């Protein structure tokens, strides 16, 4: 009874939204903190796949780990010749390879963590590594 009257008065006197009057001070704080946390979760959980390092392997052994922050090239002597790795800020690729089919060269720039170019004939691979590795595929 009493609350019905209180609600009616909030309609007439304050012209405040009757729904807003149901929120207590702590509710505003909790809602605000939650909203910030939700907003923060988007970049946190969605950009974990960005690459940070280029890992070059020969016969499965790590030859070099290159920082993806600056430009450079690296030549790796493989089984049948020399593979050239090119690194630019945020990305890396196989620039040249002696392999007959050039699959790893034609794969182009690799950016995201987990992406890999394999020059099988020359036993060389280039993989991007990040804070947490991405994935090739998920099957349900």
């Amino acid at each position, binding site marked *: 009874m009493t*609350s*019905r009257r209180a*609600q009616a008065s909030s309609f007439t006197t304050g012209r405040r939204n009757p*729904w807003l009057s*149901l*929120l*207590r*001070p*702590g*509710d505003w704080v*909790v*809602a605000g903190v*939650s*909203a910030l*946390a*939700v907003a923060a*979760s*988007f970049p946190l*959980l*969605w950009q974990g796949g960005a690459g940070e390092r280029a890992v070059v392997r020969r016969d499965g052994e790590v030859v070099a780990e290159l920082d993806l922050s600056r430009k450079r090239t690296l030549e790796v002597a493989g089984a049948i010749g020399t593979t050239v790795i090119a690194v630019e800020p945020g990305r890396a690729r196989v620039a040249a390879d002696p392999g007959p089919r050039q699959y790893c060269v034609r794969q182009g720039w690799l950016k995201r963590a987990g992406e890999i170019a394999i020059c099988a004939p020359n036993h060389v691979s280039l993989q991007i590594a990040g804070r*947490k590795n991405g*994935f090739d595929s*998920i099957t*349900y």
Partner: protein
Amino acid sequence: MTRSPIELSTTPDDHRIARLAAAAIALSLVDAAIPLPLPGVKPGLANIVTLLVLYRYGFATAAWVSGLRVVAGGLLLGHFLAPGFFLSLTGAAASLATLALAQRLPRRWFGPVTLSLIAAFAHIGGQLLLARAWLIPHDGVFLLAPLFFAAALFFGIINGLIVARLLGESQPPDPAEPQHA
């Protein structure tokens, strides 16, 4: 009509729990019938009942109502003991556990919206952890988490406001408790 030899003695409390659980189950079915674009995103209307019960009858009754709702809702929706049932069970258990703590917050400052938000986040958090540990054992599950969190925020506030409104309308606790037991 022959009298059944089995006599279950029930208390008024049992009747109240059954009645409230029935309301929660009905809202679960409404929940399941609302189409939403992303699987896993639900308004969680049954949580309105859980919160109302928590406020009016205390934690034990709320836990009963919530548990009965999960089991009977699972039977009615046809996913009893299927993965969806365990997700639902985990979500309900997680939100009850946090509600047990959150109900001790000072009532003057923290109202139903706070409890509803906390319960909603605990619900989806528990479900995500179960999904990660058991159903999809890969961190890829967490790619969907921001969307789930956003839904929990939105529906948590809406449901909390509904609870606050209903509490305001029905206080003091209804003296006309139906006596047709």
